[in-house]
């Protein structure tokens, strides 16, 4: 257990080595350092995790040092390991290691950024370090360190291909939009500290339970502020618009940061702070609503995308929506469980799509793919396995977690049927868009020649992830028992009518998909072609118009005002003082012209004026 600190230290060391060597190491060494550091972290995580389990799953904390000491504000750099942190650490180091290994192949001969191999792994290692601090920190300030750190690495990696200004734009958009969420989170932190006098997670939750009665407004406000932070990081409506653009990063980045780990940080935050939401059912309800809206909207958006990575991006948003809804309806363990299974199958999907993209020389448009299943057997099987887990076919990992979420949602006293209904429709849509993606990519006629050049380092992670995506469900809900309030159990009858409908939805979706897209294999870009349908398609395609709205309501006025006021209107006040002084100077300079006659006239006029005034006074 005392080795806990080593888990984040290895990735940090990896980063430092790669950063300080300024890319001068041989490529093989870079690959070994880059992936090896995460591998070591994963090994330590396994050892620590085993000790943790052997010790009866008792929470363990490890004090490193006192960050700062100002009056009563004494944030400690302390790591805290419990079931929740262990699951997260396992996902981050385990899936993270597989993705790093994959990336050694994917990035090896990168045509766009041949010099960037070292930079890439430096950023990736820094990301893993920050993500581990996020989940292991026992203080909200340490969590915030990780929170901002992963945001930075996300920015750096989205903009990795920095020669294209569009990528830079996508990267900045991701950073700024999530920072809007971070602002909420920071305010929540300030408020929490003011009310409870500490930012330590365990201590503040204990204090909150004593200080606030159920339904307390303070808990609601803090809960909603943290929800705001979670929305930004986890790409939930209305702060979701950055995620599809984030696909500009290399595909392993999308797999690690924008599918498996960083975007689930919001889920982790709410699960970690669940006591607040237990005190305030109102805040918890809004978590569920956020999730529902997101999972619904994005599942429709995913259906009409043409870029394979954007399909997966919207799918990720939608699946995180499920997690939020789960948190909101009290299926705490199921949310974390789905986080884990999603990490398996979505990482698999992204990596498999990466192999496809690489084989097609960076072609991402599904309508230019097709017929690839013969040529790319391993990516094909991987994609297929990932897809059935995503669609939640029975006995895959996604099935166990999603099933638990939807059944608990149905029981919700406030709006159970709405939650369940929305989620069921989205489950149908999930199966539908997944089927479409598989059919377009791997079946029908081939439109682009494929060159499979992936070696073992790209294929092995795919195969391992296939195993996890299929069998990951057997970890069970019990992994987070003792941490989250529902104790890791669901008590649902798997053969009630609602459960059967829940189970049938994906199958129905696949059949519909086969029927609609199968007949038009490699076919049309749109649903049946009326004008109305085309407008709907366009609306969905745009992500329900959020970007359009934000561009006009926020970005355009911001930029326009900045242009207008480039010269700082405040300076006008000072400049006008100067020009008034100069004007007076000119006036007086004209008067002083050195002509005797002019002076005499003025003297006479002045005297006459004085005389008139005096006379007036006297006569009055």
């Amino acid at each position, binding site marked *: 257990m005392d080795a806990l600190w080593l888990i984040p230290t290895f990735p940090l060391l990896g980063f430092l080595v790669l950063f300080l060597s300024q890319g001068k190491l041989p490529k093989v060494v870079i690959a070994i350092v880059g992936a090896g550091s995460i591998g070591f972290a994963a090994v330590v995580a396994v050892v620590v995790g085993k000790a943790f389990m052997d010790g009866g799953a008792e929470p363990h904390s490890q004090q490193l040092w006192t960050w*700062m000491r100002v009056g009563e504000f004494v944030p400690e750099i302390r790591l805290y390991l419990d079931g929740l942190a262990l699951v997260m650490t396992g996902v981050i180091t385990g899936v993270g290691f597989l993705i790093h290994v994959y990336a050694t192949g994917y990035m090896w001969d990168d045509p766009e950024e041949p010099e960037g191999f070292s930079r890439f792994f430096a950023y990736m290692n820094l990301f893993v370090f920050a993500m581990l601090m996020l989940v292991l920190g026992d203080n909200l300030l340490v969590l915030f360190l990780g929170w901002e750190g992963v945001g930075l690495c996300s920015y750096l990696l989205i903009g990795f291909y920095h020669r*294209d200004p569009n990528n830079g734009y996508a990267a900045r958009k991701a950073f*700024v939009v999530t920072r809007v969420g971070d602002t909420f989170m920071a305010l929540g932190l300030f408020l929490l500290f003011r009310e409870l006098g500490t930012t330590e997670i365990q201590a503040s939750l204990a204090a909150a339970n004593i200080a606030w009665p159920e339904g307390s407004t303070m808990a609601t406000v803090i809960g909603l502020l943290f929800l705001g932070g979670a929305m930004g990081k986890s790409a939930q409506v209305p702060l979701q618009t950055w995620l599809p653009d984030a696909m500009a990063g290399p595909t392993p980045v999308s797999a690690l940061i924008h599918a498996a780990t960083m975007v689930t940080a919001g889920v982790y935050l709410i699960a970690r702070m669940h006591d607040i939401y237990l005190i305030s059912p109102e805040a918890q309800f809004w978590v569920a609503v956020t999730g529902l809206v997101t999972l619904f909207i994005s599942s429709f958006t995913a259906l009409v995308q043409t870029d394979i990575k954007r399909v997966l991006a919207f799918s990720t948003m939608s699946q995180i929506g499920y997690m939020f809804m789960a948190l909101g309806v009290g299926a705490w363990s199921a949310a974390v469980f789905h986080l884990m299974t999603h990490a398996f199958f979505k990482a698999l999907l992204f990596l498999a799509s990466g192999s496809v993209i690489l084989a097609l020389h960076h072609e991402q448009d599904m309508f230019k793919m097709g017929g690839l299943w013969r040529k790319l057997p391993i990516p094909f099987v991987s994609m297929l396995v990932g897809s059935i887990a995503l669609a939640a076919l029975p006995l895959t990992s996604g099935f166990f977690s999603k099933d638990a979420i939807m059944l608990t949602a149905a029981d919700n006293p406030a709006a159970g049927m709405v939650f369940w209904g929305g989620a069921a429709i989205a489950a149908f849509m999930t199966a539908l868009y997944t089927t479409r993606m598989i059919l377009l990519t791997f079946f029908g006629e081939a439109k682009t020649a494929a060159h499979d050049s992936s070696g073992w380092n790209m294929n092995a992670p795919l195969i391992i992830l296939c195993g996890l995506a299929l069998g990951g469900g057997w970890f069970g809900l019990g992994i987070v028992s003792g941490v989250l309030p529902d104790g890791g159990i669901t008590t649902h009858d798997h053969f009630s009518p609602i459960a059967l409908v829940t189970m049938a939805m994906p199958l129905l979706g696949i059949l519909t998909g086969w029927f609609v897209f199968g007949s038009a294999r490699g076919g049309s870009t749109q649903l049946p072609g009326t004008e109305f349908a085309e407008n709907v398609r366009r609306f969905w395609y745009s992500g329900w118009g959020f970007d359009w709205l934000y561009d006009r309501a926020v970005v355009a006025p911001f930029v326009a005002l*900045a242009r207008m006021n480039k010269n700082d209107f405040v300076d006008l006040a000072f400049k006008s003082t100067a020009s008034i002084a100069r004007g007076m100077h000119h006036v007086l300079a004209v008067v002083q012209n050195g002509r005797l006659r002019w002076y005499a006239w003025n003297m006479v006029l002045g005297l006459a004026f004085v005389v008139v005034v005096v006379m007036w006074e006297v006569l009055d």
Partner: protein
Amino acid sequence: MNILALIMGLLAAGVVAAFSERIHQHAPRWVSLIAFVVALIYTSSAWLGAGSGTEEYARQVLPWIPRFGIQVYLVLDGLSLMLVALTAFVGIVAVVSSWSEISERHGFFQFNILWVMAGVVGVFSAFDLFLFFFFWEVMLIPMYFLIAIWGHENRAYAATKFFLFTQISGLLMLFAILSLVYFNYQATGVITFDYFELRNASLDPDVAWWLMLGFFVAFITKLPSVPVHTWLPDAHTQAPTAGSVILAGILLKTGGYGVIRFAVGLFPEASQDFATVGMLLGALSIVYGGYMAYSQSDFKRLVAYSSVAHMGFILLGVYAFNEIAMQGAVVTMIAHGFSTAALFMMAGALQQRLHSREMSKMGGLWVRAPRMGAMTLFFVVASVGMPGLGNFVGEFLALLGAFQAHVPLTIAATIGIVVAAVYGLSLMQRAFQGVPNPDVGEIEDFGAREMTVMILMMIGLVWLGVYPQLVLDLSAPVITSLGVAGL
């Protein structure tokens, strides 16, 4: 430690530097560099030599004009000490950053740098109000020359503007100082400019309020805060690199220091009545400064406006009137000294290579000069407020403390961190990313000399970011003595 010797040493080094040009054209910069290194070692040794719990590191009292109770009264407490150390460090950065930039009058150039810094050391250590004002003026004149002689295309305008703003606001302060001494004389029958005596002066609250305002205006002009910030972008843009580094790195801090030591220290009650205005100006500077930074297309102007935003955190923190926020203000001063000095050094290096500060003429520079790109990235990230680096600690503490004092203003200020992300990343994009500008040929990347200084500043920021306790411990007794309550 002998403070007077330090100040005199810097002044003398200035004279030596001026004459050393006759020996060799490049002798002055070496004189300057050695003087600052010695000053840094000397100051640090006073710090390291003192035991923990020390509240005063040096004190010197010599009579000057006894008839008016004016003394050479120099004290180094924790706050002064760290700022004096920062002064010496920024001096090194300034000299290195203009190592090969200056092409004429090398001796007089280094003379001015050394004299500004001597004035700054005096400002940070003077506890006699007359002496303080004396040093306040000493640092002004050489700075004026630095801008007016070695500045860029519009230097006369910028130098005059800088001079007028500082001089007029300084006049207000002089008036406030003399009135304070006069009122104290009326009450006690003693003429004195002694800081500690005047702190105990019993003043009519209305009078105290007006006197406080005199100091306040002088200091926020120097800081600068909205709405008296408009001299800064011009001065920064037109100054030679060393001038900008000194301005941003240390000269602005005399404003923050003055607010803490004099506006709040001499008039605690009046300042507390004024707290909301102070915080309001702070929040305004954070948001408006950040927004103006985004509006700029000139690299240096952008960084200059970002300074306005960062200095807003100082006002916000000081006027929140609690220990956490005030410590935030102090840490911000130090962290900003590193991060902005580095960015101005970068701006100077770019101008020297591209002969332009316009970001539209940059773009894609990462490919040409990866080391400069990585360094800029680091300091932009620091100034955006990334946890683990110094600026975050300062700004977070300032906001955390401010939240306890005034919620709406803190919310407004917190929005500033989003704006910081917008302008910081847009700087990075416009200068270093995107398609390499075809008009820009090969440019020389940073060499060992520049990298050494850059890495020193990086270490400083990381150290402040992960373990700021040494700085916090230095300023804690000072803040306690101001009577600022803990939380």
